[in-house]
């Protein structure tokens, strides 16, 4: 850490970590309700549990992105943040909004557009926080050194904040509502967030491997070009069956097939940089998360996305557990793992300690990643059976669900592994101060 004001990132990361805990516990409860449906059904119905699970995820990922921006932009721009005070005000607004949203969900006050259920005042709060953030980070970047990493990061963050406007647009016509809803949902996770992801990954590669900046940045432009060229028209894969024109079936199939390429490029980028790198950075855990993130993102977003994206396949799989399988692995690989990688890299620096928690942290990576992989497999099997019985044979929804119990039990088991991994991660990030396994005698030359 070179600049004092980078320390605001610490509070963003801690807040994100706390919400991460809430998110996985909410997920575990939802998974339990699948196998024991009467649990809390009168006081905390499934829809409320799910809102907490998904909303907590989205907010903590955004807090992680904001924190990452506050950490890396001063370092890239080579100057202090424009205003740490504004950054703290922004964080307080976001936390009040989040607690307000969770509180109002628990008493049954919420909207009804999936993922955008926040009460209107919370949505405005998010808007205000986004404006504060953009002003703060843009003024910092404009005054200092301009790099491709900040360029791409800021472009992604500006666009994602602008797209938030669609959260306020809710036409009475359901099909229009759905079409504009995707302008937030798809163009966030399959376009603008990919820019943020690429920029953060680029920064981590630069720091961890010591590869020349020119090389990293050229790769980055190629990756984000591939992401937007495929991802923008790739929105078409959500426009197959919601009342939109039939031509989207072709546009969606073709461009969302191409969406695999940027994820493959990101994975290749990470491995090539590590291979070419001359630096032996002591923070091995951060490197593991960076490589793991790009790899799991390729499988979760890329391969599992392609699995059901062709319109002829999607006609049968749309809205089954196949979608749930893809959603879980894609979010975990692309955004959860990347954020955890950034925390792993930055927290020791923010706390002014050497990387001290490598073993526990890496164990948590394997526990979480193994759990998520198993969850994805069980849901994929459940979805395959569901697709066949319900969509081909025409059996009724609940009759089919009753036969999927075994998979839901296995899914819950994998969820337990993920939660244990998450708790281990949080413990290693915030509590442990010493390495649990004594390193061998060979001295590792220190990186940056």
């Amino acid at each position, binding site marked *: 850490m070179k600049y004092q004001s980078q320390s605001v990132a610490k509070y963003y990361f801690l807040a994100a970590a706390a919400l991460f805990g809430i998110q996985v516990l909410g997920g575990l409860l939802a998974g339990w309700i699948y196998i024991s*449906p009467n649990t809390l059904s009168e006081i905390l119905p499934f829809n409320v549990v799910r809102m907490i699970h998904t909303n907590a995820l989205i907010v903590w990922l955004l807090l992680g992105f904001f924190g990452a921006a506050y950490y890396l932009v001063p370092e890239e721009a080579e100057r202090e943040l424009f205003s740490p005070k504004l950054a703290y005000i922004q964080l307080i607004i976001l936390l009040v909004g989040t607690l307000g949203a969770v509180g109002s969900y628990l008493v049954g006050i919420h909207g009804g557009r*999936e993922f955008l259920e926040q009460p209107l005042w919370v949505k405005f709060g998010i808007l205000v926080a986004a404006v504060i953030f953009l002003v703060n980070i843009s003024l910092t970047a404009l005054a200092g050194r301009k790099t491709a990493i900040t360029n791409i990061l800021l472009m992604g963050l500006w666009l994602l904040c602008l797209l938030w406007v669609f959260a306020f647009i809710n036409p009475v016509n359901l099909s229009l509502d759905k079409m504009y809803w995707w302008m937030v949902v798809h163009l966030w996770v399959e376009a603008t967030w990919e820019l943020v992801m690429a920029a953060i990954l680029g920064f981590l590669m630069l720091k961890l491997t010591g590869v020349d900046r020119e090389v990293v940045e050229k790769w980055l432009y190629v990756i984000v070009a591939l992401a937007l060229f495929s991802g923008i028209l790739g929105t078409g894969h959500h426009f197959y069956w919601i009342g939109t024109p039939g031509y989207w079936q072709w546009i969606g199939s073709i461009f969302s097939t191409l969406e695999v390429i940027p994820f493959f490029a990101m994975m290749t980028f990470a491995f090539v940089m590590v291979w070419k790198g001359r630096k032996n950075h002591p923070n091995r855990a951060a490197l593991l998360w960076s490589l793991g993130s790009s790899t799991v993102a390729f499988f979760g977003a890329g391969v599992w996305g392609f699995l059901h994206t062709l319109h002829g396949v999607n006609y049968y799989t749309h809205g089954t557990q196949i979608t749930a399988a893809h959603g879980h692995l894609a979010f975990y690989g692309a955004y959860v793992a990347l954020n955890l990688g950034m925390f792993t890299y930055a927290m020791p620096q923010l706390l002014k300690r050497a990387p001290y928690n490598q073993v526990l942290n890496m164990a948590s990576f394997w526990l979480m990643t193994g759990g998520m992989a198993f969850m994805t497999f069980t849901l994929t099997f459940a979805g395959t059976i569901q697709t066949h019985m319900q969509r081909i044979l025409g059996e009724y929804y609940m009759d089919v669900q009753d036969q999927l119990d075994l998979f839901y039990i296995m899914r819950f088991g994998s969820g337990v592994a993920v939660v244990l991994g998450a708790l281990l991660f949080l413990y290693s990030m915030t509590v442990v101060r010493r390495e649990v396994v004594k390193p061998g005698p060979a001295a590792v030359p220190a990186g940056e």
Partner: protein
Amino acid sequence: MSEIFTKSRARNVFYGGSLFFVVVFVALTAQSHRYIVKTSTAGAPITEEIKLGKEVWERHSCINCHTLHGEGAYFAPEVGNVMTRWGVIEDPEMAYEVLKGWMEAQPSGIEGRRQMPHFEITEEEMRGLAEFLRWADQTNTQNWPPNDAG
């Protein structure tokens, strides 16, 4: 290779190409907007009742258990074609009666069965919800879902 394909060229390709795809996407979205209004949902006008029904649908966050045109949570059945499944798509009064009967019987309390909560819904709102679901059902969704099971 690296002399021809420089960083600034890569950047220009990124900006130029992205702009191109944004323009194409905006044009297709505008066309799709027209298509939805004039064609795919034009089978029945949107009444005040339907508008109320959509508000009821949203207020109770039905989407976080059910799917509607395949989107939502996967905990409860698809409702985009529920009126067809119940055989009441052509009959507003029956649609209302069946929906009311179903919702008032919830939660079933049966052990081991997924529970739908009990919702406080007035008669007017229940009629609106039934009309909203009937309206959604007549949307041209390119023949999705494949069968009445949803």
